[in-house]
């Protein structure tokens, strides 16, 4: 049964631990998916997720029961992502080659053998890579607009920039992504 934010906050007033657990379960996928597409690496996405929930929980006592949590969750997530400084630690990329010259992603066994799946994977991967290469603001604007389906006004609010700036971020980002996907031959145009 879906529990509303109001009910969760009521539970939180009675039993803090249970309330926080419910909030975490409700929003973990939301926060992690934005963090992952922003950071591009699981470990970084997990770090951001942890930071978001700590910040959220620490300020929950000041939150008014009658409001929905989601705008707040969005704001904190976007803020934490944009402020996240990626560690310079070495990460293993699937495009990295082995000693024999094979790419790691080719060496790792996969159960996806059909051509369709491979094509679909290519589009997804190319899109992911292209989004990952965008500057932080543009990347966040694309994630919020296209992945989360947010309106320009809402994006402007959570990113704390004017709507015109959001439009510019999106225009530039789409131009870059389009050029990348064309270069990789994703579309037969």
């Amino acid at each position, binding site marked *: 049964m879906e529990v509303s934010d109001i009910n969760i906050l009521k539970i939180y007033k009675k039993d*803090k*631990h249970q309330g*926080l*657990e419910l909030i*975490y*379960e409700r929003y*973990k*996928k939301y926060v*992690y*998916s934005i963090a*992952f*597409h922003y950071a591009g690496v*699981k470990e970084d996405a*997990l770090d951001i*997720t*942890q930071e978001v*929930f*700590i910040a959220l*929980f*620490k300020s929950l*006592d000041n939150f008014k029961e009658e409001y929905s949590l989601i705008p707040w969750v969005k704001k904190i997530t976007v803020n934490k992502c944009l402020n996240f400084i990626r560690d310079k630690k070495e990460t293993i990329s699937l495009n990295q080659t082995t000693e024999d010259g094979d790419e790691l992603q080719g060496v790792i066994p996969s159960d996806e053998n059909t051509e369709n799946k491979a094509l*679909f994977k290519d*589009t*997804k991967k190319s*899109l*992911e890579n292209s989004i990952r290469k965008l500057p932080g603001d543009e990347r966040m604007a*694309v994630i919020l607009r*296209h*992945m989360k*389906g947010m309106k*320009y006004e809402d994006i402007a609010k959570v990113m704390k920039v004017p709507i015109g700036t959001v*439009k510019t971020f*999106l*225009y530039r980002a*789409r*131009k870059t*992504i*389009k050029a990348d*996907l*064309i270069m990789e031959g*994703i*579309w037969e*145009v």
Partner: protein
Amino acid sequence: MSCKLDKILLQDLMEGTIDPVERIFVEEHLKTCTGCRRELTELKLLFWDLNNKVNYEIDMPEELDTIKDAVLKEVCEKNPRRTASVLMEQQRKTLKASGKFLEFVPGVKEGGNIIKEGAKAAPSAIGKASIGLLKGAKMLIAK
């Protein structure tokens, strides 16, 4: 000859955020410009891929549960009160504990009551004494 149309209008057209007058202008332009028609086709493909939720599907890592425990531990176990108030309370508890033995010393309770009563009666006793002193002083002056 390169086209002079502001390409942002094509994105606005795709998003449905284009001004009605500009829409008419762009639609007319598209009838004659093959470059912009191609650009629009590419944008349609791009929007299809960008809006396709499947492209954003990811596996939720098991570590999310570990993080939940860590976050709850950090938030719930940490004393949310300020350090000063915690210290004050500790001090009060220490003082209370240090005087606890007095409750078991015979006569302390009665003694306490006597002191309390004495304290209550003190103002009148002091009053009487001061009146006596005043009288004595007057007598000395008279002599």
